């Protein structure tokens, strides 16, 4: 599986600064998305990971630097599950249909739109859940629903915000496999994660962010104590097990209840 990005360029950020209400979140960030990319953005909470996705999405304008996108590029986005209002009265089918092509004022779905929604739900293994309310799904099914919604537009670039936060281990494996399949089909994927061992270490290409880009490369290149300390501001130990890198927290915060270290 490639993923470092050698195909044609789709999105390019050059020397970008981003801020919310005069509070600088990202500084001097240069980031490229290529056709065959599969990248994980790694960093602590508040480091600017979601902001970087929003810049790629162009729902946030940079305060400095430039954002270039290939003409007519189709970009889809899967939000973090925690940010969705789950009590909103909407079924799975309607939620997926929401991302259909705009420009049609008709509020109901056409036969071809219905067919394409059903097809994408089937592809993600939730074809029988279309009429359920979104709240009635498990965490993994909810994540699949948002993937379905993103895939309806047949994106060239898929952006995902923490796709594995709040899901169990087997769902995490399913999602990783789904994303790997999509990548094989030619979709460029960029996701954020703070899960180093469950997610980042399995990806072909990582970018470490802490308000600026502090490291970039394959997991074995980036998951080193030096780069991780620059990223997370804490000392971490890196072990190698069956060719996979594992990160262990090193420090006084690790304790077993009832004992003192």
């Amino acid at each position, binding site marked *: 599986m490639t993923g470092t990005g050698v195909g044609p360029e789709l999105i390019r950020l050059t020397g970008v600064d981003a801020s919310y209400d005069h509070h600088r979140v990202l500084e001097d960030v240069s980031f490229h998305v290529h056709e065959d990319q599969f990248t994980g953005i790694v960093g602590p909470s508040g480091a600017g990971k979601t902001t970087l996705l929003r810049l790629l999405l162009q729902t946030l304008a940079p305060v400095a630097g430039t954002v270039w996108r290939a003409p007519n590029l189709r970009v889809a986005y899967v939000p973090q599950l925690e*940010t969705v*209002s789950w009590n909103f*009265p909407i079924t799975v089918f309607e939620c997926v249909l929401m991302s259909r092509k705009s420009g049609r004022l008709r509020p109901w779905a056409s036969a071809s739109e219905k067919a394409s929604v059903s097809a994408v739900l089937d592809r993600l293994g939730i074809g029988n859940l279309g009429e359920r*309310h979104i709240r009635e799904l498990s965490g993994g099914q909810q994540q699949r629903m948002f993937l379905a919604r993103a895939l309806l537009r047949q994106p060239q670039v898929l952006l995902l915000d923490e796709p594995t936060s709040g899901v169990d281990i087997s769902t995490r494996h399913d999602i990783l496999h789904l994303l790997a399949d999509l990548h094989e089909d030619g979709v460029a994927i960029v996701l954020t994660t703070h899960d180093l061992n469950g997610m980042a270490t399995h990806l072909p290409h990582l970018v470490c962010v802490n308000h600026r880009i502090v490291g970039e490369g394959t997991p074995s290149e980036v998951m080193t104590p030096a780069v991780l300390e620059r990223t997370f501001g804490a000392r971490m130990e890196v072990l190698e097990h069956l060719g996979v890198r594992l990160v262990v927290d090193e420090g006084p915060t690790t304790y077993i209840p009832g004992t003192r270290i």
Partner: protein
Amino acid sequence: MEWILDPFALGFQQRALAGGILAGLMTAVVGTWLVLRGMSFFGDAFVHGIVPGIAAAVVFDVNPLLGAAAAALVMVLAIELVNRQTALSEDTSIGLLFVGMLALGVIIISRVDSYSGSLTTILFGDALGVTAQDLMIQAALAVVVISAATLFYRPLLALSFNADKAQLWGLNPGRAHAALLVLIAAAVIGSFQSVGTLLVFGLLVGPPATAALISRTVPRMMLTAAIISVFSVWIGLTLSYHLNTAGSATMAIVPIVLFFIVLAFTRLRTLRRERVLSHV
């Protein structure tokens, strides 16, 4: 049977029912988005904000609908102005305009001889005073509001569910929001003569909030809210006839009472289901 038919034997009573039903249909559709977007406070402020326009129309003897429309425009533009020019939160700008406009309305109307009578009519409506011409205008506004709500269904759905993505899909969230403000204005203007500016808010929030407790989709929520609205108008007018109470207020209290009945019912059902599950 007489208990049901008697309250609507006369022409003005039938017009009150028709006016109330038209108001109920418009507010059900618009109120659904108001509740889903969490804009209830704006709705409350807005229905009070049009009072000076209506008061001025009474003083200068022009159509109150025009006065209400002018005041609605001033209200929305002024809220927008405060939002853009200051760092204050939106509820502050809404609150400022709410009190300012309501006070201005009372000042204008206090210059009129029949002060208390006019004010009561504006605030609480005059369901039994609705004319055939009022009904025609109301019906036209109802057609416009319901068609526009249908045309804007997709953008409003995306805006209410997640505004950030609406933009990504080529929908224009700003335009959808502006359209919603116009729809709210049209529904309120088309309803205040029957139920009053104060009580139109009851129809705007009560039926959609009740419907939200039991609906799985937005179209079903609108339909449920419309049924609750029409029922509230009919039962409200019937009760007010038999109990000799104010028509508009009786109409407005029904959906609120219904809300708590439905809430109690859904809570009981959830409790019972949880008990069944805990036995499995």
